[in-house]
């Protein structure tokens, strides 16, 4: 499937054969897990939006509906003890990294048992024992921090690898330049993943970046760069897996651009005045979940009936988690100062 000219052009021919091979090569359970996580993300985001609309959420949220393949394809390529650091549109990464959905929803609702005990909220969900080193709310701020995480891995001779995820808006920050150069000169075990969802808030990527595809910037740092169809989960998986293998072998970082699209607005303030309904609809027709289901059916990995079962189970999981999270206790404002500094 080719993408329209008005959006970043992507050459998917190189990855098409990889995808065909992957469908045959990956265990059926792994493919089912990927579908399950994508469905959980979709339902989590829809539930979050619903809770917000019903006035049950205090803060804002940045929904990743339409970007599920980028989250799941990237993180599925990691080993369980590998690490991620990511950004404010981070619910998808957190679910893909294996977070407890009840604790995520609890954090979104600001509850004490939530991942950050109600101190972080939607933009800052971290699950450190689970290898999710947290989401940052200042665009691009996770990128320099990821240099240090990867540096620690290298200095400790760890076999772990870090995925550093950010959006298309982050690549125009000075921090992006400083960090990719530093990671490259030290050959750090990090894979930089730019989730290009076409807009930095209202700023279209083709107006805000002097070059496209964005992965071409990798040339400036002497690292491999690849742009992939970010709505094709196995294309993402294939590209990220190659980059992870390279990083784990000590050959240094790569830059991967997952070309995708956010269906919803930037945040709750978004009136969608900077793009057309036609454009949004054109991307909805390339729904990453529908495409993955079709692929699995065509490859005779699973029948639609079975996939519908996975889909419905994901929906039930999110609903159960939401009900449980709503019943959890609020945090206490006592002794808040005690938590600013570590003992």
């Amino acid at each position, binding site marked *: 499937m080719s993408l329209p000219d008005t959006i970043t052009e992507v050459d998917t021919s190189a990855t098409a054969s990889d995808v065909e091979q992957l469908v045959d090569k990956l265990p059926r359970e792994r493919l089912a897990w990927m579908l399950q996580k994508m469905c959980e993300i979709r339902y989590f985001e829809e539930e979050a939006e619903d809770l917000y609309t019903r006035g049950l959420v205090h803060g804002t949220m940045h929904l990743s509906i339409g970007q599920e393949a980028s989250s799941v394809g990237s993180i599925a390529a990691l080993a369980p003890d590998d690490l991620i650091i990511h950004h404010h549109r981070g619910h998808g990464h957190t679910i893909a990294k294996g977070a407890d959905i009840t604790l995520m929803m609890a954090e979104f609702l600001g509850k004490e048992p939530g991942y950050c005990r109600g*101190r972080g909220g939607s933009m800052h969900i*971290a699950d*450190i024992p689970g290898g999710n080193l947290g989401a940052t709310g200042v665009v691009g701020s996770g990128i320099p921090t990821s240099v240090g995480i990867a540096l620690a891995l290298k*200095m400790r001779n760890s076999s772990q690898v870090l995925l550093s995820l950010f959006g298309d808006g982050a690549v125009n920050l000075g921090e992006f330049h400083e960090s990719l*150069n530093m990671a490259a000169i030290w050959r750090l075990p990090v894979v930089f993943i730019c989730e290009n969802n076409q807009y930095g808030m209202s700023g279209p990527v083709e107006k805000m970046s002097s070059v496209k595809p964005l992965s071409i910037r990798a040339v400036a740092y002497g690292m491999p760069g690849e742009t992939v169809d970010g709505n094709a989960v196995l294309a993402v998986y294939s590209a990220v897996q190659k980059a992870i293998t390279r990083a784990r072998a000590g050959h240094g970082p790569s830059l991967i651009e997952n070309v995708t699209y956010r269906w919803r607005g930037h945040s709750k303030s978004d009136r969608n005045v900077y793009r057309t309904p036609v454009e949004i609809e054109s991307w909805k027709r390339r729904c990453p979940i529908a495409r993955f289901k079709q692929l699995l059916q065509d490859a005779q990995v699973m029948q639609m009936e079975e996939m519908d079962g996975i889909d419905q189970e994901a929906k039930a999981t999110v609903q159960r988690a939401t009900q449980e999270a709503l019943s959890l206790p609020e945090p206490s404002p006592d002794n808040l100062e005690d*938590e600013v500094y570590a003992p």
Partner: protein
Amino acid sequence: MNGDGTREISYLEALREALSQEMRRNPEVFLIGEDIGVYGGAFGVTRGILEEFGPERVRDTPISEAAIAGAATGAALMGMRPVMEIMFMDFMTISMNQLVNQAAKIRFMFGGKASIPMVIRTPAGSGTGAAAQHSQSLEAWFIHVPGIKVVAPATPSDAKGLLIAAIRDNNPVLFLEHKLLYGNKGPVPAESYTIPLGQAKVRREGSHATILAYSIMVIRALEAAERLAAEGIQVEVVDLRSLKPLDKETIARSVSKTGRVLIVHEAPQTGGFGGELAAVVAESDAFHYLDAPIRRLAGRDIPIPYNRVLERAAVPQVEDIVAAARALTYEGR
């Protein structure tokens, strides 16, 4: 050397000794910054450390202050103990996002489930003819941010003990080194030791007025106190040493005793830390003992100028402290 292993060494040598001893003690301590390796740092603090510990742990970086701060923050998040150097405090403006929005916030924002044990060493202050972009004292910005600690030693022995304490602290600690102090010598124990963060020290006892100071202004205040003593005025000099956490008890005790307080710092007065110190005194029980208004003597509200005479005029000198303390002592009598 004395029997207890105390020698006279410089502030700079004391810092270098602290770094070396901590690096020997803990393999997770490492240094990161611009020109800290073979060059030895712009002021020579890390000279010789590369030779002992190698380039992995004495990590020369590109000119990338944001990425240096990010690298330190990320490594600290992983449990290592980075000591980052920013060549001049002025350049910390480029590190601010990582320090203020990441390093200072991560622990709290993640529900207390992470910590960032890192030190940010940086030379601050004027007096070297380096003009407006290499002479600033920006400590108030950092004191204002919950999640960061700020330390500003005045003597060689404090430099060593506070730096070791900062490295062992489990939080981001901004460690201010005044450029004019690097060459100052003083007695420093050879063995490793810590001075707890948050403890002020009365450097000189007096009964007529208290001077609250830190970093180089402690040295100038002590010289001013010596001159004033010749006039029969006895000022007490309190070296704050740690600006955050702040030893409010020692401040209140001294001001309660003398009934007069002069706050001295090099940074520009408006929005400077002296305003906070004045408030701390005013809100404490010491307020009831005040015999005169709280006075501040700080840097003028100007960028640091280049010319020697102009530069001297920009920040408090010994004679300025003498004049201000004398005036305060006679105020209202």
